């Protein structure tokens, strides 16, 4: 349990820390430190297992089918990184306390910092590659938020976006790589993967998997040519730069390479890809660092260079080089974090980071200067400091590579050159900032020492630099051994952590680097002049260019595809449907099935012809909207007849009543719309559309014909058999609707209700003035509500209501039911609106349709939920028989209540929709008001 806890704690802290923001900055800083302290305490007991070369594994199942598990694994390497993350994290919290001003959003800062810490711990402690990837992406996201912490700065936002794009892209590559590895090994568990190194390396997909994994590692660890995001990430607050971009996050790529070292390293591909990338990064970073005037810029490129150095060491493939790499991870984290903190102090106290202005600070802050000078010396590789030890090992290893011919000289020369640059830029850092004359035009003058405890974290780190430098075996020996053993898969070569290994070639290289660097610094003006002639390839510019190109392309593609024309979308949709439908149809073909064709009787033949002619005529004369609408209503009526003809009385009744409502609706719409559709499309377009329509129609004809002549078996036997005994009704369609598939119906009336409410909302406060005439030059009739219609309509209402009640009640046994009865009632009410006007009718209707809808849904739901009270599933129905005077023995099913809900919902929805449209015109409202008066 303790390992997942270590990862979880910072996240819990991220939630809890903001609660302490009220208590002041000290309270929140203390609260933010607690998770790390507990985590350190939780890790401590495991040391006995780890020092004996063991691992600790805590696994919980998550998605076993995907190979994903909550698997946490602690070994020497994981412990080393976890300690770096936790301890430097603690120091950064102390430092931030003094760094952030009172105006900053400290709650957000600490919360994000803790989130980052948790993600980072997740990476190093994951025992499952997929789980690790999740944390990997989390570090990219939290890093993005931390870099852009000062959201008002454009550079910060840009830098954050670039970091996210590069590391996020690398994360995708890593995902692909990990999936490949998991596929090869058959498991994503780290133990399985590490044990299957030979299998992976001999697999034909190894080069692909390796490249993808390395892309992830290189982008994260800012290796050439992806290095450019790191200097721009320096827009982050300095504690973030110290923590994420020198000590921890950028080491995640290094960690990944070390973690998968047994599984992936030791091949030629690994050697060339990793070591050459490292070499290029090492040299490039060290070279550029020298010319940066920005204090943090210098440190950023120096970080790039040191990351390259570690990568190069890992790439060499020898065991000693791997040990040196791990050692340098520790050393770099300590001296670089302290340098960043020192740079932050200087920035804090002088108000600038420009080394051309910051000079001679020794006089103003000797304490900080001493600390920074020790750390910078470690960075330069001065003896008795930790940077010297790992650099010596690096020099020694660079001589051990068995490269053919003159190539063997390349690594040592590159190493020495990079060493020279490193000394030069370290010298610049020290000399320019603390000596070299007087400060030039500082925003804050005179600078003075920072608060006492702001220097405390720097002191700790510098102390660590010296301790490791002087007493390497005692201070880091066991930890390094354990980490190296975990990296190498158990076998650790003989190595000695000594201050001096005697007078040999590596020492000579160190001397060369040291004095070469100092010489270079004294001659720096020549180098600056030389560098000024070079045309620097600005990675940021290239990146922004590529991004804006991609944005432009996406924009123009979207603009082309999504031009705002429904006509175009409908065309694409129809054509794709036809294309998709053709494939299976072409395979099976069209044919008249076994059942053959039945003879046509003349009434049916006539009706069908009317339907076909009306449908085609609707399309042909659609410009005359009113006539087209009349033709459309003919089609609807014939469809209703068709349902009646082919044994579907319920459908016929529904279609008939819906038809009435639909036509009224379209008539209403036409009142506001132009009644004439002008020609918009060219002749070619129309011919194309006709061809497409014919293709669709022909296809549907053939499919229908094929389907209709096939024998079939249906699941409906069940419904037919159980309708009466199970549902208590003989009208199977109605029993299906309110009982067997009642849940569907409940959904359906809900949709109906939502549509009606949507209509109401959409038309609320919308005014639409109808055109003065019908577009054919005729003015609207001046007649108000026709007297004849009014007189007929009024007595119709009670009659129609009675019919609908009858239809409703008998619905369970004979054609009818809630849907049909609801529609009949609606039609009867709509007739009143048409005949007598909006105001007259509204005055006489004592309820709002919203409430009717709500009541309907309530009834239906209660009827369904009622069965729960008796321990039956939702919507179980029951029925019984009662004796109704006059009518006789009557069957009552609980489904009747449900059907009542349907009835009410249909009425409410239909009328709400139509009345909303009717109320649209202020003109008509005034007119009917006048009439009503």
């Amino acid at each position: 349990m303790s390992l997942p806890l270590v990862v979880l704690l910072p996240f819990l802290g991220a939630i809890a820390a903001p609660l302490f923001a009220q208590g002041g900055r000290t309270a929140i800083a203390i609260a933010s430190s607690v998770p790390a302290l507990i985590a350190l305490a939780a890790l401590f007991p495991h040391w006995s297992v780890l020092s004996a070369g063991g691992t600790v594994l805590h696994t919980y199942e998550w998605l076993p089918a995907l190979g994903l598990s909550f698997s946490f694994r602690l070994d020497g390497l994981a412990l080393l990184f976890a300690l770096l993350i936790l301890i430097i994290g603690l120091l950064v919290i102390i430092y931030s306390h003094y760094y952030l001003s009172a105006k900053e959003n400290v709650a957000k800062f600490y919360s994000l910092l803790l989130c980052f810490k948790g993600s980072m711990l997740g990476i190093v402690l994951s025992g499952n590659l997929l789980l690790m990837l999740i944390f990997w992406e989390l570090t990219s996201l939290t890093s993005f938020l931390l870099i852009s912490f000062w959201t008002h700065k454009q550079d910060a936002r840009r830098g954050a976006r670039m970091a996210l794009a590069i590391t996020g892209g690398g994360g995708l590559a890593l995902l692909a790589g990990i999936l490949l590895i998991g596929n090869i090994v058959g498991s994503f568990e780290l133990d399985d993967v590490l044990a299957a190194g030979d299998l992976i390396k001999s697999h034909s997909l190894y080069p692909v998997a390796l490249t993808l994994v390395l892309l992830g590692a290189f982008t994260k660890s800012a290796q050439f040519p992806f290095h450019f995001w790191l200097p721009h990430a320096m827009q982050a607050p300095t504690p973030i730069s110290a923590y994420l971009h020198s000590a921890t996050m950028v080491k995640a790529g290094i960690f990944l390479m070390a973690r998968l070292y047994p599984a992936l390293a030791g091949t030629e591909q690994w050697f060339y890809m990793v070591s050459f990338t490292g070499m290029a990064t090492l040299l490039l970073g060290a070279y550029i660092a020298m010319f940066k005037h920005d204090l943090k810029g210098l440190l950023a490129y120096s970080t790039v260079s040191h990351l390259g150095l570690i990568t190069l060491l890992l790439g060499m493939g020898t065991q000693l080089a791997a040990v040196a790499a791990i050692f340098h991870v520790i050393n770099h984290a300590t001296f670089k974090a302290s340098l960043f903190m020192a740079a932050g102090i200087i920035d804090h106290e002088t108000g600038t980071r420009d080394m051309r202005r910051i000079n001679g600070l020794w006089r103003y802050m000797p304490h900080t200067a001493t600390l920074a000078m020790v750390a910078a010396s470690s960075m330069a590789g001065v003896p008795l400091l930790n940077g010297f030890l790992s650099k010596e090992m690096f020099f020694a290893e660079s001589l051990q590579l068995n490269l053919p011919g003159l190539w063997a000289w390349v690594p040592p020369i590159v190493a020495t050159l990079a060493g020279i640059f490193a000394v030069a830029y370290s010298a610049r850092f020290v000399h320019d900032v603390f000596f070299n004359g007087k400060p030039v035009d500082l925003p804050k003058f005179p600078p003075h020492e920072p608060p006492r405890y702001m220097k405390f974290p720097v002191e700790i780190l510098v102390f660590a630099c010296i301790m490791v430098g002087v007493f390497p075996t005692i201070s880091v020996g066991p930890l390094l051994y354990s980490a190296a053993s975990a990296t190498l898969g158990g076998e650790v070569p003989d190595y000695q952590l000594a201050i001096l290994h005697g007078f040999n070639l590596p020492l000579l290289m160190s001397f060369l680097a040291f004095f070469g660097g100092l010489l270079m610094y004294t001659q720096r003006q020549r180098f600056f002049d030389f560098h000024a002639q070079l045309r620097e390839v600005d990675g940021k510019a290239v990146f922004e260019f590529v991004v804006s190109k991609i944005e432009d392309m996406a924009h123009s593609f979207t603009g082309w595809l999504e031009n705002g024309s429904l006509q175009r979308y409908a065309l694409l949709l129809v054509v794709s449907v036809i294309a998709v439908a053709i494939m299976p149809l072409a395979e099976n073909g069209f044919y008249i099935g076994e059942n053959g064709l039945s003879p046509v009787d003349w009434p049916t033949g006539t009706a069908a012809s009317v339907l076909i002619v009306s449908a085609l005529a609707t399309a042909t004369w659609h410009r005359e909207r009113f006539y087209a609408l009349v033709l459309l209503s003919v089609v609807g009526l014939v469809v209703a007849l068709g349902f009646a003809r082919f044994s579907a009385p319920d459908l016929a009744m529904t279609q008939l009543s819906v038809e009435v409502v639909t036509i009224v609706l379209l008539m209403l719409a036409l009142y506001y719309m132009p009644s004439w559709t002008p020609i918009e499309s060219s002749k070619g377009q129309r011919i194309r559309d006709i061809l497409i329509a014919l293709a669709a129609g022909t296809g549907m004809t053939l499919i229908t014909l094929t389907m209709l002549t096939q024998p079939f078996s249906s699941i409906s036997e069940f419904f037919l058999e159980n309708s009466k005994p199970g549902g208590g009704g003989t009208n199977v369609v109605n029993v299906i609707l309110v009982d067997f598939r009642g849940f569907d119906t409940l959904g359906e009336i809900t949709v109906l209700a939502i549509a009606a409410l949507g209509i109401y909302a959409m038309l609320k406060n919308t005014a639409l003035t109808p055109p003065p005439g019908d577009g054919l030059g005729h003015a609207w009739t001046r007649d108000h509500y026709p007297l004849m219609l009014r007189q007929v309509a009024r007595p119709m209402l009670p009659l129609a209501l009675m019919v609908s009640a009858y239809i409703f009640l008998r619905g369970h046994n004979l054609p009818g039911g809630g849907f049909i009865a609801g529609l009949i009632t609606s039609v009867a009410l709509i007739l009143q609106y048409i005949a007598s006007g909006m105001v007259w009718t509204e005055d006489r209707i004592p309820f709002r349709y919203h409430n009717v809808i709500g009541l309907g849904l309530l009834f239906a739901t209660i009827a369904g939920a009622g069965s729960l009270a008796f321990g039956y599933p939702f919507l179980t129905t029951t029925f019984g028989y009662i004796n109704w005077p006059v009518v006789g023995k009557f069957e009552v099913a609980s489904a009747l209540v449900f059907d009542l809900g349907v009835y009410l919902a249909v009425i409410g929805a239909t009328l709400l929709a139509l009345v909303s449209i009717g109320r649209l015109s202020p003109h008509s409202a005034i007119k009917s008001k006048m009439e009503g008066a």
Partner: protein
Amino acid sequence: MELLFALAIGALTTSGVYLLLRARTFPVIMGLTLLSYGVNLFLFASGRLATGQQPVIGTAASYSDPLPQALVLTAIVIGFAMTAFLVVLSLRNLADNENDHVDGRRETAPPPSKLEQEVSGK
């Protein structure tokens, strides 16, 4: 009979699709209405064509398939809701944009009357 039924569905689909591809709201709504007639008939036809076999227990010797009927019944009602929603959407569009185009054009002038179009030689 089956051929006739299939042809009817074909005619409904043809007209519906053609109207669906027009540039103004009202024809599109009519097209969708026609198309939903066609689709409803097609769904209904999946229970095959039967004469005098209404699925009411005790009224016939054998019964037609009640399931497609139940599905189509709700489809008709939902189809109405959809049509109503579309009509209102186009009315709202008319109110806000003062035209009934759905082809992406932003013409604010009222559509030419039939007479004008005839004069212009169409």
